[in-house]
């Protein structure tokens, strides 16, 4: 069969080093003093400030109310990531199912309408979106943070691609067995889509987790602040302001912010690669 050469491993090692290197450096940097980081930049050794820095960002209560810790912010980001990913997957599966498996008037129009959302990122339509959210009374709420982000069509597009590649025979067989549209969807299509769902879950969770501009604009209550906002807040010290940013704390939060999405990625990529291989052989 195919022979594995040393080159294959070399390329992979190089790839892994290039991909991981900056993160390792960011971690090492986070264990140093902020003045050292400011003066000499990224650090390549393990410093002596690991425990105090991480203790501070995780457990120290900050903010005006003194109730916001790194953990609160991680929790908010988690809700944002999960809510966004799950909401988006459910909604876009339903829409894609309708588009691919039903013959109805306006199908083409609906298709293009949904796909037109790829044309304008949220950052561009942010002020009108704020007004809509305000009218529904959703400022300072998780729902208000999540729902406007779901508008984009990537998920629907993704499931459309997948449904189109599902063999037609499946539906024919199901119809012979007398399955209706809901039974076919729940009993056959959803189980078949688990791998796709987990694949999309990875993208969407990370996307939701990493949102900055929208949550910043529409929340003023500190209890809704996310981890990415926490990082920006630490780094934002003005030139006139007599201070240097706490780079160590920002880097530490950045490292912590990476952990949950990485767990999601690792967990789900195993599931979904396994699922794919099994379904095929």
């Amino acid at each position, binding site marked *: 069969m195919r022979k594995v050469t040393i080159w294959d491993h070399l390329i992979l090692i190089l790839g892994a080093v290039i991909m991981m290197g900056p993160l390792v450096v960011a971690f090492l940097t986070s264990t140093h003093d902020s003045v050292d980081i400011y*003066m000499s930049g990224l650090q390549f050794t393990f410093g002596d400030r690991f425990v105090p820095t991480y203790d501070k960002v995780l457990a120290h209560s900050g903010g005006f109310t003194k109730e916001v810790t790194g953990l609160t912010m991680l929790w908010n980001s988690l809700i944002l990531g999960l809510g966004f990913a799950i909401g988006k997957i459910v909604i876009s599966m339903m829409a894609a199912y309708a588009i691919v498996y039903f013959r109805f008037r306006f199908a083409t129009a609906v298709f293009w309408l949904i796909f037109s959302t790829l044309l304008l990122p949220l950052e561009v339509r942010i002020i009108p979106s704020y007004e809509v959210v305000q009218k529904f009374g959703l400022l300072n709420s998780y729902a208000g943070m999540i729902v406007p982000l779901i508008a984009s069509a990537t998920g629907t597009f993704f499931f459309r691609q997948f449904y189109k590649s599902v063999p037609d025979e499946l539906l024919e067989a199901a119809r012979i067995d007398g399955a209706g549209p809901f039974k076919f969807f729940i009993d056959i299509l959803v189980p078949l889509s688990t791998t796709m769902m987990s694949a999309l879950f990875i993208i969407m969770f990370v996307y939701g987790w990493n949102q900055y501009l929208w949550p910043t604009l529409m929340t*003023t209550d500190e209890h809704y602040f996310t981890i990415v906002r926490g990082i*920006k807040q630490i780094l934002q010290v003005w030139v*006139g302001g*007599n*201070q240097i940013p*706490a780079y160590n704390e920002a880097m530490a939060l950045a490292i912590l912010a990476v952990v949950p999405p990485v767990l999601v990625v690792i967990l789900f990529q195993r599931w979904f690669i396994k699922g794919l291989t099994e379904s095929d052989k």
Partner: protein
Amino acid sequence: MIKRLVSFSISLALLSNTALAATEITWWHGMGGKLGDVVNEIANRYNASQADCHLTPAFKGTYEETLTAGIAAFRAGEQPNILQVFDAGSATIINAKGAVIPAQDLLEQEGVKLNPDDYIDGVRNFYADASGKFIGMPFNSSSPIMYFNKEALAKAGVEPPKTWEEFEAIAPKLKDAGYVPLVQSHMPWIFVENFFSRNNVQFASNDNGYKGAEGTKILINTPEIKMHWTHVKDWKDKGWFGFYGVPGPDNQKPFEEGKVALFLASSGAFGGLAKTASMPFGSTFLPYWGSIKGAGVHSFIGGAALFAMSGKAAAENACTAKFFSFLTSPEIQYYWHKETGYVPVTKAAYELAKADGYYAKTPDAETGIKQLSLPGAEWDKGYRMGFYVQIRDVMNREFVKLLNGDESVDAAFATIETDSNALLEKFAKTTAASN
């Protein structure tokens, strides 16, 4: 047990009742890191100082993000009571007549007399209207000054220059001593806006833009500033001027590393420099041109001000007014000055700091205030131009091209003039219907 629970809930109810009795006001700001902590502390002190009002500050991102969040909220009727707006955004909010209650009116409604003469000269007019009435309440304020590397000056055997002519005389010696003679940290602020104030040259028509957006034109394609930049480019070519990009920190680093002799930066930078600079340093005023008649007057501030948003209940406005009085009290101004390096905005706070012996310990903290208190003249009160964020972007773009040698001084300033005036004309149309 039950008794304890009941008494606990009663005390809880009482607690929330007293909290409810206080009028809630909000303050959106763009102060991150340590500055945000100081903002929170000031809000806490205000809340502790009286029982009627309760102020909650909220961090809303960068200055630009804070302003845009305020705008989006205003359009939806959810605006905060107090919005922090930075220098370049002040024309946007001041020209939107009806968006804010002028700070002076707000205070006078509460029976507090605001006397502009109580404020430091370079602070007084920046957020005021053409007649001198305070629209915004100056908050975090600083001015560009010159820091000098004491080792470098000693090695070259020279004194810090007062004028650019003096600089040109000592620059070769500093270079021979192995230093980059000069670096700056914010081109539009230091080498344009405060060039016009320090040298007393008109910056825009319509009284530097104070008389309204309609017909305001930038006066930048003019001999004095072009002369200055012709010299700057010449200094760069001779190795007298180091340029490391537009962002301030990129230019500050070489000074901190001890490679640079003279560094132009915010008067508030000394605290950070004290932690990071590898050599002893001092500070003095921003140089001016001896060849320009009437030059050497005071500079004006940069930073941001607090604006009281309109459309709020009278009780809330009263609380905002009280907070403005609290904020400008000498004690709070002195606390703010000490903690952050920003200048105190009132003369009384400056006197308090002097009396407390603060400047005997940290002389660099006083340089900015002294410079802002120099004698004034006609063109040193500030500027008011719309879409100024974009105008600064245009300036930076052209200056980088100029310093890289991609463009001549004439071409750069012609482009800045054309593009800025197009933006100003556009801005005038946005406000047209509101006047």
